[in-house]
């Protein structure tokens, strides 16, 4: 195991930067997740660490050794591919032993270490099967065992769970996390699924448009998002467009004046509100109390989600726990919505960044 350092790592295709100036450190034994929408550069970053993509600039060091221009086969990185990339003509045992064979280990050592790797992923009885005779979940575990058998300096996971169904995905990600902790593996995982990222990571890196937007713990990203993009991408936020009217007040496009912490921002801005931080009903003690009308109700089971119109231009989403003791509001009901001033985050710029990105991608 070793630590990983990236310094100003960039990849340029013509004029377009796929990855721009990425710098980060992964500590020995840390589980780092690169999170971002498709096309944000996270996979390119991972492939530069593995050596499949040659950086246009910057450097990568594993355990203090510069590996920037080392070919993939001379780095000791174990990679689990999105498609698993199992060798279809080799048995499970041959797949797992492949990396050890390349390292010219003797037969008994190879056998012992492959068996151990298969035991770790609980596939002891399957060593003579061919990959096509296994289920998707089993194939995924073979891919993991294969990467673990070489005792990699860094374990790289490229969307390893995206081809599994939802239920299996939850189980496997906990398994991977436990294995990683038990073996003390320095790990970098790429995913676009924020729930997956939040479950397994020690630390997360949010990327967009080839650049790092924020590095931090789950709590950092959720409570103190660095910008509008992170606020929209990690967890959910409703964005109200408007401008900063006073050092302690935000005025929406619909003319509502809201008590907010504006953090020195002035001019056009937007206010991000987490649905679960808003309260419905008698809200005496809160800084903001606004009347509204229910426009849409989702009954999600554990929680209810209500879309409440506050003004012709402003609508917020409110989440309330489903305790079963109160009447469920109906569409058209008049309600009161409230929140403390700290619940609203003010960012420069307007609109919902996640949706804008999505639209840009479709046009491009």
């Amino acid at each position, binding site marked *: 195991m070793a630590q990983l350092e990236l310094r100003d790592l960039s990849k340029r295709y013509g004029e377009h930067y796929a990855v721009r100036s990425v710098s980060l450190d992964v500590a020995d034994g840390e589980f780092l997740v690169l999170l971002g929408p498709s096309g944000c550069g996270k996979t390119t970053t991972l492939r530069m660490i593995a*050596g499949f993509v040659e950086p246009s600039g910057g450097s990568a060091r594993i355990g203090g050794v510069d590996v920037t221009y080392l070919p993939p086969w001379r780095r000791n990185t174990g990679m689990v591919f999105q498609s698993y990339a199992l060798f279809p003509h080799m048995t499970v045992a041959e797949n797992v032993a*492949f990396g050890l064979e390349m390292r010219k280990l003797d037969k008994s050592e190879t056998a012992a270490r492959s068996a151990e790797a298969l035991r770790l992923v609980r596939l002891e009885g399957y060593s003579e099967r061919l990959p096509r005779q296994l289920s998707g979940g089993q194939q995924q575990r073979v891919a993991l065992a294969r990467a673990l058998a*070489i005792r990699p300096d860094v374990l790289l996971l490229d969307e390893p769970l995206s081809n599994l169904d939802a239920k299996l995905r939850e189980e496997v990600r906990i398994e991977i996390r436990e294995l990683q902790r038990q073996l003390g593996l320095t790990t970098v995982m790429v995913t676009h699924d924020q729930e997956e990222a939040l479950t397994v990571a020690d630390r997360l890196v949010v990327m967009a448009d080839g650049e790092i937007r924020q590095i931090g713990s789950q709590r950092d990203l959720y409570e103190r998002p660095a910008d509008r993009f992170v606020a929209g991408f990690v967890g959910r936020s409703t964005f109200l467009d408007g401008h900063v009217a006073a050092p302690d007040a935000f005025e929406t496009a619909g003319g509502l004046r809201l008590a907010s912490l504006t953090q020195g921002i002035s001019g056009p801005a937007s206010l991000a509100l987490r649905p679960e931080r808003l309260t419905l009903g008698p809200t005496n003690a809160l800084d903001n109390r606004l009347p509204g009308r229910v426009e849409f109700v989702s009954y999600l089971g554990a929680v209810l989600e209500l879309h409440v119109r506050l003004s012709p231009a402003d609508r917020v989403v409110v989440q309330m726990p489903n305790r079963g003791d109160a009447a469920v509001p109906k569409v058209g009901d008049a309600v009161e919505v409230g929140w403390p001033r700290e619940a609203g985050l003010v960012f420069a710029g307007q609109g919902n960044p996640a949706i804008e990105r999505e639209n840009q991608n479709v046009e491009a």
Partner: protein
Amino acid sequence: MRSVAAVEGRSNQRFGAAGLVGPATIYVAIGILVPLAILFRYSLNQFVPGRFMVDALTLENYVKFFTDAYYTGVLWRTVRVAFATTAICLLMGFPLAYVLARTRTRRKNLLIMLVVLPLFVGNAVRAAGWMVAFGNRGLLNASLMGTGAIPQPLEIMFTETAVIIGITAVNLPFMVLTLQSVIEGIDRSVEEAAFSLGANPWRMARRVLFPLAMPGILAGTILTFILAMNAYATPVLLGGPRFQMMGPLVYSQFVQQNNWPFGGAIAFILMIATLILTAAANLMVQRRYRI
């Protein structure tokens, strides 16, 4: 009611399939199987000079072929040329096929067209190109003698070397296209997985790429081997009148000597020899690699 309708629907479809596939099947069956049967029957007839073909049931045409050193020499030469060209095609074809398969740019279509175009142009025209190169005053000799590398023109025209070069160039596109389509079906990330596990390119190729490309290698080898065994225009033009291979031999017996029984026998020997050798190659490869 429902089951009746279902049964009707199915029989309807069955009739439909026969109606769709029937005409082509009957056409090809009559156009290929019946002629082959007639040819085989001819090969059992006797050839009496002056009386042409006489009905008989004899193997004497086959016996004649295998007991005459001239004819077995032609067969042996044909097999030798076919092996040589197939091996060269594989060695030269794999790198080109790999590069084509892994090219993702717009250049790819152009490159493939450049591989396909010669295929469409015909063997005689391509043999003509080699005639331009190999003649006594051709490009090769003129440039070698011009630089003083050799005092006298090399005798390449009308040699086995010329024929092997010619057939290799003719068959190479088939090998390249067959391999390319198979390599394209191999997931790129499988190669990357081998690299990430510590395999250098050569070991990756030997352990992962070649075994996975084996169906394509086999298909391409068989195709180019069959084509080389049955080459006609190239040996006629580059080998000259004295360099006999099986294809031209069939033609000369049939059309020039009018010896149909013997010509038919040679045609069948050619076909059977091709089949046996390809089946043997198939078996050998399948035993070594699990396909």
